[in-house]
């Protein structure tokens, strides 16, 4: 291990590789915001509502069955007690206790249902965000491409889904950018060579065309940066 050079802190406790070159300010790391979780409302809410409503219907139906069975048992016990004793107070006391137990059950189930819907909705929004996020990012790059801008494509965030799709997009984007860059360089070289080339005929027209191509190259340079 003695061959390994000692690390040198360059700036703010960071090593050389971690500090951006040319002193350029490092781009702030993107943080997920609560307000940005619903990027594609149509796509996300469709799934969230579907699963939440489905869970609500299942929980509601089975919850009703639970309450019904409990109520049947309570009513049966009340009738038994009424048959066994003539003590109205005792009957009322037992009926009250059973009713209270049944009510607690309803509250428990309602709490469970509400909790389930809330937790599920939050989880599903996050889950669908991991799909909507990459789609949103790709859409932004598509908008840039529509404007004729083919810049650098950055990687997805950790945990995002659709990695395969994004990789395909990135590779395609990079290949197009590389090809257009090569074409751009070829056109720059062509401008230089054509300027130096000797002409037998109308030179002014050629110079005008070269000027336009040069301007086009300037625009393209910005588009590919």
């Amino acid at each position, binding site marked *: 291990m003695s061959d390994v050079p000692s690390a040198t802190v360059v700036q703010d406790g960071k090593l050389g590789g971690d500090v951006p070159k040319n002193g350029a300010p490092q781009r702030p790391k993107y943080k997920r915001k609560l307000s940005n979780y619903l990027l594609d409302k149509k796509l996300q809410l469709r799934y969230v509502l579907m699963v939440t409503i489905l869970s609500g219907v299942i929980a509601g139906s089975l919850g009703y069955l639970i309450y019904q069975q409990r109520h049947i048992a309570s009513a049966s016990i009340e009738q038994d007690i009424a048959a066994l004793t003539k003590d109205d107070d005792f009957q009322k006391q037992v009926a009250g206790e059973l009713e209270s137990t049944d009510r607690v059950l309803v509250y428990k189930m309602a709490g469970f249902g509400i909790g389930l819907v809330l937790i599920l909705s939050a989880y599903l929004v996050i889950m669908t965000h991991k799909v909507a996020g990459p789609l949103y990012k790709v859409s932004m790059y598509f908008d*840039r491409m529509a404007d004729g801008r083919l810049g650098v494509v950055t990687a997805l965030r950790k945990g995002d889904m659709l990695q395969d*799709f994004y990789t395909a997009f990135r590779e395609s984007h990079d290949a197009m950018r590389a090809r257009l860059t090569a074409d751009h360089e070829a056109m720059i070289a062509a401008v230089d060579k054509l300027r130096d080339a000797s002409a037998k005929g109308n030179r002014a027209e050629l110079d005008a065309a070269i000027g336009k191509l040069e301007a086009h190259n300037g625009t393209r340079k910005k588009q590919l940066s």
Partner: protein
Amino acid sequence: MAGPANKGYKRSWKNLLLNKRYQLRFTLFMVGLSALLMAGLGFWVMREANVATSVGRSRVVGEPCVKVPDLKPEEAFPDPAPPPPAPPVEKPVNVPPPDTDANDKAAAKADPKAPHHATVQIDDETMTLVPPAPIVQTVPKDWGDAVVEHWSCEMRQAGALDDLERGRTRILLVIVATSIGLLLGLAVYGINSTHKVAGPLFKVTLYLGKMREGRFDKVYNLRKGDQLVDFYDHFKAAHAGVVKLERDDLEQLRAVIAAAEAAGVEHDVMGELRALVARKEKSLE
């Protein structure tokens, strides 16, 4: 965004799982969650149903049926009439008892190995047979009604218990059948609905593959019912943007080549530019 008409592609069951990771994740989450809810709440329902059945059973069994009154033996079997007096027994004739010992001794002498036998003689003339008294069974007047009432009650109870048990079984069957149907339906629905997202992504991936190779074919519309329509519109705009870049290049290059040819320029760069134009023209076909 009026694009070329759809090719008329039909969905095929074989192609439903285009993006397995995405589609299975969302479908299995939905199916798994439903299965968990159905199992957990179904178990709770069955527990309550068992309690309700037990309470109902206790209630049914706790209502005693009217017992069949026991028949008293003297009522069923009254004392038989006293037997008729035995006929007068004639004084038996004194018959000297046989000398068994003498007989035995004589037999023993004849055959010492022969077994000893005792001889019994019964004189049935002195025995009297008494005929059995006729059995007269007498029951209380309301005994029949009591029996009918008892067994009606028993059958009613058995029916009520059977109803309770069948009700419990019916709940169990309904939950199991609903769960199976729901889970199967959700699996099909989940794969089908995620396919409507995976389909457009797959289509865009195919176009991106062509664009990577430098081919800018026509972009067709999505199928009816597909999702991500907005996303696909963004893609079509991007495709058009790149095509425009290529066309702009082509236009400039053609203009320069035309001007150079008009000026009579003879240079190697002309060949390079013509090759570049040819490639770009081919990519836009």
